């Protein structure tokens, strides 16, 4: 009997042979709130956010650090949360798309995204906004090249990039000179 399977081991978190899964208590600082979670060590930050904290604004598009939809900010840097383990994120400051609007009031960047139609299907939007937030938090004198580089790791198949650039350029123009 000939048995072979189409190999997709590279695709999702396959962890045969690790059972019973080791767990660990992890304290995550997400959007300024602390969460104590009992997680399997293999749990990615994306899984922890989505499955354990119910923060489903962080999307998953490839689960292997290629598409950028899962981007969140960790200690000021944009990271792919699908390839950061939750245990690695412990003690670090995590910001997700849910933390951007304060008391239901949209962040200016979110408003500009709407104004410039910088989104279509919206699936990549949370990741792109977080990539840009990390850029904008880092400093001033942001150029168009900086904007492009900041989202070079985020796919947008709908092609919203020109509008995204316009939205961010407008945001930068509105900031007081530093």
């Amino acid at each position, binding site marked *: *009997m*000939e*048995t*072979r*399977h*189409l190999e*997709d081991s*590279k*695709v*999702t978190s*396959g*962890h*045969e042979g690790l059972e019973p899964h080791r767990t660990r208590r992890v304290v995550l600082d997400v959007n300024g709130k602390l969460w104590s979670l009992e997680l399997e060590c293999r749990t990615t930050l994306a899984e922890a956010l*989505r499955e354990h904290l119910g*923060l*489903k*604004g962080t*999307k*998953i*598009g*490839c*689960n*292997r650090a*290629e*598409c950028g*939809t899962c981007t969140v900010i960790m200690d000021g840097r944009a990271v792919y949360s699908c390839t950061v383990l939750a245990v690695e994120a412990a003690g670090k400051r995590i910001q997700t*798309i*849910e933390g*951007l*609007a304060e008391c239901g009031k*949209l962040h200016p960047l*979110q408003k500009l*995204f*709407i*104004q410039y*139609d910088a*989104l*279509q*299907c*919206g*699936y990549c*939007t*949370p990741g792109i*906004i977080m990539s840009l937030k990390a850029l904008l938090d880092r400093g001033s004198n942001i150029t168009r090249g900086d904007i*492009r*580089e900041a*989202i*070079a*790791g985020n*796919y*947008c*198949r*709908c*092609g*919203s*990039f*020109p*509008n*995204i*650039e316009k939205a961010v350029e407008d945001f930068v123009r509105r900031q007081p000179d530093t």
Partner: protein
Amino acid sequence: MNATQVQEIKPQLLVEGWVPPPLGRDFTVVGKPLDRLDAPEKVTGKANYAGDVSLPGMLHAKILRSPYPHAKVRRIDLSRAKEVSGVKAILTKDNTQGWYTYWYKVAQPAFPETVSYVGHEVAAVAAEDIDAARNALKLIEVDYERLPAVFDAEEAVRPGAPQVTVTDLPNPEPSSYGPTEPNIGNIYAGRPSVLTRGDIKRGFQEADVILEKVYRTPSQHHGTLQTRTCVADWNGDTLTVYESCQGVWKAKEDLAWSLKLPPEKVIVKVRYQGGGFGSKSGAQRFVHYAARLSMETKRPVRLELTRAEEFVSHPRRPSSVVYLKTGAKRDGTLTAMYGKAIVNIGAGGGYRPFINQLIGPPFLMYKCPNAYFEQWGVHTNLQYTGPTRSPLNVSSCCCVEAHIDEVADAVGMDPLEFRLKNYTPYADQVKMTPFSSKKLDVAMRCVTEAIGWSRRKEHAFLQNNMSKRCGIGMASYIFQGVGINPCKANAEVVIKKDGTIELHAAIVEIGAGSMTTLAMIAAEELGVPVEDIRVMYGDSEAGPYAPGTHASRIVPEMGPAVLQAAADARQKMFEVLAEFFKIDASQLRSAEGWIYLGSDSSKKVRFKDVCGLIGDKTIVGRGSRARNPGSGYPIRGENPVEGPVNFATFGASAVEVEVDVETGKVRVLRVATAHEFGRALNPKFCDSQHYGGVLMGIGMGLLEEPSTDKKTGIMLNTDLHQYRMPTALDMPLEIIPFNVEGDDGFFAYSAKGGGEGTNSAIPAAIRNAIYNAVGVWMYEYPMTRERILAALAEKAATGR
């Protein structure tokens, strides 16, 4: 006049029954760059896509796929897989005999006896968690009998080639995508589609210049950021599916047929959708498995395809090889056009509407008395093919618009001038059937002027010794998809006594802004601000039958239906007011939230304030689209121009590129691109469609190419690093969009739609600009660095 000239038809809004009168005032909503109504949820992460749905007791499913391109499934042993803790159900061909999945009404065996591509479904597992499902998958033992396979279309038509097992069942229904006639060998329907007029033999004799070339276009994957995901929930009576598809009603029908359920027992919900581009028009195969597993286990079942599965399992754009031969006189007059297109349609899928889509554009776009084109659909042991943003339009454009530039060059004419010289306003040049509107000439002039066509130096490469050289090129297109008969599209507008106005439009918002656009039509017609409209959408229960959001159908099909529904509701509202105010309903007008009671504009009442007068007799305005009087889309009609008038949208793109002759890298610096929307209902959304078209066009033109192992038929680049889609860094520094408008009385405020076509001309325009920059004609897409360098090396070696 020609005796066969078609009877003229008066433009009239394409609706059933009552035709609403013209608005009679300036637009107050339409034409304004309003924000998307669903944007706040999308920028805050509150938008819940199918993958974000989690139901109590939900199981997780995985699919076992064939590792072989062609094999008989002899025996499947589940004994070990069943023992995995947490496994609840396993489906295979053995326990689902006679079960079909549906794709555009085409029945395909859910688990075929013979698998015909790598990735074809063999089994489906549902388990308590994803690990158990994966583990079970690995323990399913399948005994395959391997069969010879063929992957190349030209090889597949040679005598003695392996015979592909095609499992799509024939379906004579015109709106089905299935075959109507039996295949002969690997040839779809056993013959090519043919478009012909005049006498090409004579045409070639009359020519001063004859050019003959071969072009190759690749498959293209949709690359939606959301992989196919669904949650199916059978409660013992009704099946509810949270889907990621582009059409809730279509998916509802597909699932009802497949699972033998009455349609009213199937509910499909797609509130947010993470990208479609044609790949998810109705229910796709994967959702059928989740649904059946849910029915078997009586538990909700979640199925999410991995990125690699996404690549191998969905119907992608077919690849093609196209032979073109054209004759022209020295003055640029076309005398004969011949073409033969061989389209690799894989193991099956949705080829039927595209049987003449590759050869249609040159046949329709250029004035030429003698033309003969044939298009062959050829089955191979590659994955299914199907709709992908401008399915074969873009492939056609890649070849024909490349060829036209070469013919222009051969007779020493400017490519724009050549296109304008051979321009025709007619869809059928013999019968002189008109297009309802055609502004391609305007589009071509807009883009060439914006790109700075006058800066374009003929054979710029001759004067340039720099390693990075710039060039300018253009291309144009037709998209024949302004409604697809039978154009079943319905809408309702409800006005309640508390002032609530609801638009019921059971469409899916896939990102083009259709939901907001339809709300704008309703708001305009009612005379209220768009914020006052609550749109019920993204749910098969949201309203009467509506088409899927694909083929640019929503605006041309749902537009007239929504306009009629809103006008109907407004008239009913006016009648209520007329009775109350004791005036004639015909004197009432509405705009911007006010209802004017006669010609004195100070006599007005707020729309919302007077809704109380409705009482308990809630107003329901209804709208239904009528059929296109002619063909709008060539579904199995051999002739793409039937009936008294033809509908199409047109467009053109002009690009400026920089080619690095040392590395072969092509950068698209600037793009000017135009699409004939008829009316840009929301110009902001139209611009966004241009940008999306540019991105997908650059992808097909320069970067994206599925790579298949020639021995095993396995796709090698099933990830987003190696299947390279354009990123922000690949986008031009400047894109100048043009939304071409013009009267077209058949559609809602003349809006013919768009979005689908906008990528069509980009690859060919880049290709023509590359010639202008470095003097090589490229014949194979995508024009990767390797291909550019090879072409430059050949030019250096041969001096040509």
